[in-house]
């Protein structure tokens, strides 16, 4: 059986992270194209409330859902620690897989690191910012990705991890029936102990980065420039560059 793993994030008061919808859609489409009893498995690490996001994923075509939650040890994990928790869970609970798909970034913190970090910890290659899977067989795939100055086509062996952007496949809308079914679906819940994870590397105290303060935005700037075009442009650039 081909296992397709999707990592998604629940965002407080919003639900599933925007780019993760595209990750899920890409995974479900792969399953539907292949017809070879592939299975879409979704993972999320977060508070108990993230369960609703897993149900959303099931209503949109996921087969199995895992919630990694632990108020004592997982809470406060930064991106590297989160990647470590997800990688550990995938290794333990899925074992062999064909592909892992993540959204390119999250809307609340947007670090863009989780995908490549999970791939590194699982020792597989990855491709970031994928907009389309061009072809895939049992051994390898070809994808197109978006970079700052153009599009790049990459060929990779499998298994591989992809992070996807809002690409060619629009996320589907779940039917009422599948929403009802998802409500009753079984969500598997795991904590740090179940995963046998090294707790000194995660959580508020184990995470390498620490948020020390939130600085308040300087009072909204209001600057006026007039005079010769040359003066306007050079003084604007100087002040603009100094303002951030």
């Amino acid at each position: 059986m081909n296992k397709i793993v999707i990592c998604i994030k629940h965002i407080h008061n919003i639900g599933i992270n925007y780019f993760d919808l595209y990750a899920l859609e890409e995974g479900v489409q792969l399953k539907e194209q292949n017809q070879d009893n592939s299975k879409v498995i979704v993972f999320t690490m977060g508070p108990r409330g993230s369960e609703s996001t897993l149900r959303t994923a099931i209503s949109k075509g996921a087969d199995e859902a895992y919630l990694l939650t632990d108020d004592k040890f997982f809470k406060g994990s930064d991106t590297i620690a989160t990647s470590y928790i997800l990688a550990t869970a995938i290794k333990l609970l899925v074992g062999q897989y064909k592909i892992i798909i993540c959204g390119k970034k999250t809307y609340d913190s947007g670090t863009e690191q989780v995908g490549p970090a999970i791939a590194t910890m699982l020792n597989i290659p990855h491709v970031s910012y994928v907009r389309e899977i061009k072809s895939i067989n049992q051994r390898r795939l070809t994808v197109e990705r978006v970079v700052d100055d153009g599009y790049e086509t990459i060929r990779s062996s499998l298994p591989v991890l992809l992070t996807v952007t809002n690409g060619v496949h629009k996320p589907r809308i779940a039917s009422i029936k599948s929403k009802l079914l998802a409500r009753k679906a079984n969500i598997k819940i795991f904590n740090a102990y179940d995963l046998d994870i090294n707790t000194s590397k995660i959580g508020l105290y184990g995470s390498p980065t620490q948020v020390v303060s939130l600085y308040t935005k300087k009072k909204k700037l209001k600057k006026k420039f007039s005079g010769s075009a040359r003066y306007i442009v050079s003084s604007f650039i100087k002040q603009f560059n100094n303002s951030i």
Partner: protein
Amino acid sequence: MNNMSISLSYTYKGVCIYAEYNRGCISTTTYDLIHIGRSLATKLNVTLSVIIIGSNINKTITQDYINIGVDNLYICDNTLLYEFQDNIYSDILLRMIQIICPEILIFSATSRSIPLASIIAAKLYTGMTSNCISLDIDIKTRNLQQFTEDMKTILTPYHRPQIVTLRAKIFNKIRVKCKANRIGKIVKLPIDVNNNIFNKIKAINFTKYKVDNIFKDLSTAEVIVSVGRGVRTYKIFQLIKEFVMIINGKLGASKGIVDLGWVPYSCQIGETGISVNPRLYIACGISGHKQHTIGINSSSTIVAINIDPNCYMMQIANFALQGDLGEIITEFIKQLKKHN
């Protein structure tokens, strides 16, 4: 924790920059990074190193970098490394970092360097902050203060190196002090051609954006230049497109310009068009009717260019540039090109 931080400050020293090199070209953000890295290294009283990985690395840039303040250059140059490939470059980069042992490692926040930095952070299990907008140093603890766009200050207190990706300046005009024939060290590293990653992944094609790409994906764009009826002529409109390309932005428009057919409807911003939330919104000759401004409310910074200082757009702008649009855009192109 205390023991850990003491041993850290002995083993890891210096500031290191990764200079992105792809398909024979150095990234234009490198000067920016060297400028910032130099000032951090001077404050910490340590050396500044730069790492370049690629193919056919230009000899003149290496001396240039030394002249503007780089102490050590670590270079890996091989035709197999012509295309940037993060999965492949990461092994080489990791080896270099193990030699250099820097306390700070800075990448540019681009679509190529962010994933590469993430691999390194994961391999070393150290902290990484993406998309920093500025950096500072606490001399006493030697901790790097990492300021992010969403107003956070982040530290990596007990792990080294402290990894960051730094956003490029939108209007890149930094001039760095230069000293001719400054002395620096150049270290060349070979690659391991037998590494089986070469069989696993390969970039097989690259298509550079064409001009019409500036009309795409406005809703997620970070920098938007928007044109209104104040543009007056098609010639000035073409200049604005050139300006958009230089600052890597996207092009939006008011209804009036969409009605003229110069810009597709998908780029119309406002009540009957789309809403955008860029970091920077530059309104060129747009008066600021409510039907337009309703689409730009969540922009972080608004710049207005307009001949009329009293129009609504100039009132709400954070930076109001009063003058003739054609003249100001021509001047922007002139000043920004001079540098690049």
